[in-house]
């Protein structure tokens, strides 16, 4: 089901994401999603996340759908040109996958195939436009589609704690102009920065889901601060994780921190997106602590 309809109904939309395997077995990812994520509204399936090659997003979406979950197809523009993207979108629609998150994608040099050709024939904005075109029965070449036209809930991402917030807001506006119906944010740790971003972004009137990555330990936080764009983790959070290594390792501290961030921000947003990064099993507990269950 299209999550845009849930937003329209005024629901607080909760999503999480899973990563396809680097191999041919998908039982584990599907079983984990069934066990820990069946209580939420939808599940994103990443697309060669961080430019690391894995199974495509689409087959995992289809398997999730068949398992009774509501998948969100993440689609980047790094690996496919417009024809391949359009073909995959039609394939997705054919299998009832009707939520798509449009992303430009990280550059290949950041991942495990640094010598691969970067495609970027489209970008997140033109990909959203492409979906609108397909919905109207035309492809990007201006040719007519035959039979039923697809209909997607079209989403995109925004980086609210980026140090170039004006450029991010400008891009957000272009995404909306291109047909974007909802946004998921990059992981938020600095709630003051996030809430001041939301003050500026609410003028656009589009639903925004707060992005959460459960912090695993102090080292991960320092790494993200140094290397991941749009992430600024305050020292107080790093100190909290460093204070008790056992509690950090078990996830207790990270879940408590994430739950606190959610509680501080939830009134300003229309939903929540959890990037568990292997800690899918902690999602139900996190939602409970955040008062969302």
């Amino acid at each position, binding site marked *: 089901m299209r999550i845009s309809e849930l937003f329209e109904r005024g629901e607080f939309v909760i999503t999480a994401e899973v990563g396809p395997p680097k191999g041919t077995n998908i039982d584990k990812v599907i079983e984990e999603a069934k066990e820990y994520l069946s209580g939420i509204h939808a599940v994103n399936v990443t697309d060669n996340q961080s430019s690391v090659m894995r199974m495509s997003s689409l087959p995992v979406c289809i398997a999730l759908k068949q398992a009774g979950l509501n998948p969100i197809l993440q689609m980047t523009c790094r690996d496919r040109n417009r024809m391949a993207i359009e073909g995959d979108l039609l394939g997705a629609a054919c299998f009832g996958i009707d939520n798509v998150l449009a992303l*430009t994608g*990280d550059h290949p040099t950041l991942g495990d195939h640094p010598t691969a050709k970067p495609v*970027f*024939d489209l970008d997140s904005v033109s990909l959203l436009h492409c979906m609108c075109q397909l919905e109207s029965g035309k492809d990007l070449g201006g040719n007519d589609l035959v039979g039923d036209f697809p209909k997607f809930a079209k989403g995109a991402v925004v980086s609210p704690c980026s140090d170039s917030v004006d450029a*991010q807001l*400008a891009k957000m506006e272009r995404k909306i102009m291109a047909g974007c119906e909802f946004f998921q944010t990059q992981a938020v740790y600095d709630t003051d920065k996030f809430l001041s971003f939301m003050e500026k972004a609410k003028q656009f009137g589009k639903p925004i889901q707060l992005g959460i990555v459960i912090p695993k330990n102090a080292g991960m936080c320092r790494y993200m601060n140094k290397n991941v*764009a749009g992430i600024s983790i305050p020292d107080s959070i790093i100190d909290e994780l460093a204070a008790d290594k056992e509690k950090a390792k078990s996830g207790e501290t990270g879940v408590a921190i994430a739950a606190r961030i959610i509680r501080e921000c939830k009134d300003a947003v229309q939903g929540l997106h959890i990037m568990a990064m292997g800690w899918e099993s902690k999602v139900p507990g996190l939602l409970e602590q955040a008062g969302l269950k």
Partner: protein
Amino acid sequence: MLITQLKDREIIESLICGKAFVINCHGCKEVFFDEKGANELQKELMEAGKLTGILTTDYICNPENMKLRLERYAKQIEEADTVLVFSCGVGVQTVSEYLADKRVCAACDTFALPGYQGVTPLEYDCDQCGECYLNLTGGICPITACSKSLVNGQCGGAKDGKCEVNHDMECGWERIQRRLAQVGRLDVLKKCPVQVRNYATYKDINKE
């Protein structure tokens, strides 16, 4: 070799906001430029009172050379609201950098042809993509200044203003955002339709 092809007349006219000062670059012999077409158009624009002056010179891609030439036209440039540059993308970028608070527009699209590429300095780069974006981006080329050649705005990968691919390189879209703010043209990004690149070559376009 390269071709600097005049943009459509309506597009060129729409670029002129208020009055314009025209710069023609007749520098490299490797560049095929429709001098006749440009002269006719500029003559008409001049007669219609839309121009404050015309400078025809060479190698505007050389910043020092360009400054010397432009200094003599300071008054006409000051009177103009738009500076319209008839050159390859490198020339337009050099002029936009020099006249950073002026509305500098490209009147040509630059297409690549095989062979010698002329004499251009390295700090400004033109990919000769045939679909010049400089009018939408404040004279900073998104094709060469952005590692992903994005044409609809910044990706989420910039950190501390640096590109995710090369930490020594400033994010091209941050530069564009700053330049547009500087010239009061941020609305360009809001208003211009979704850009989908056209990868057809000069040969593809002109085969009949």
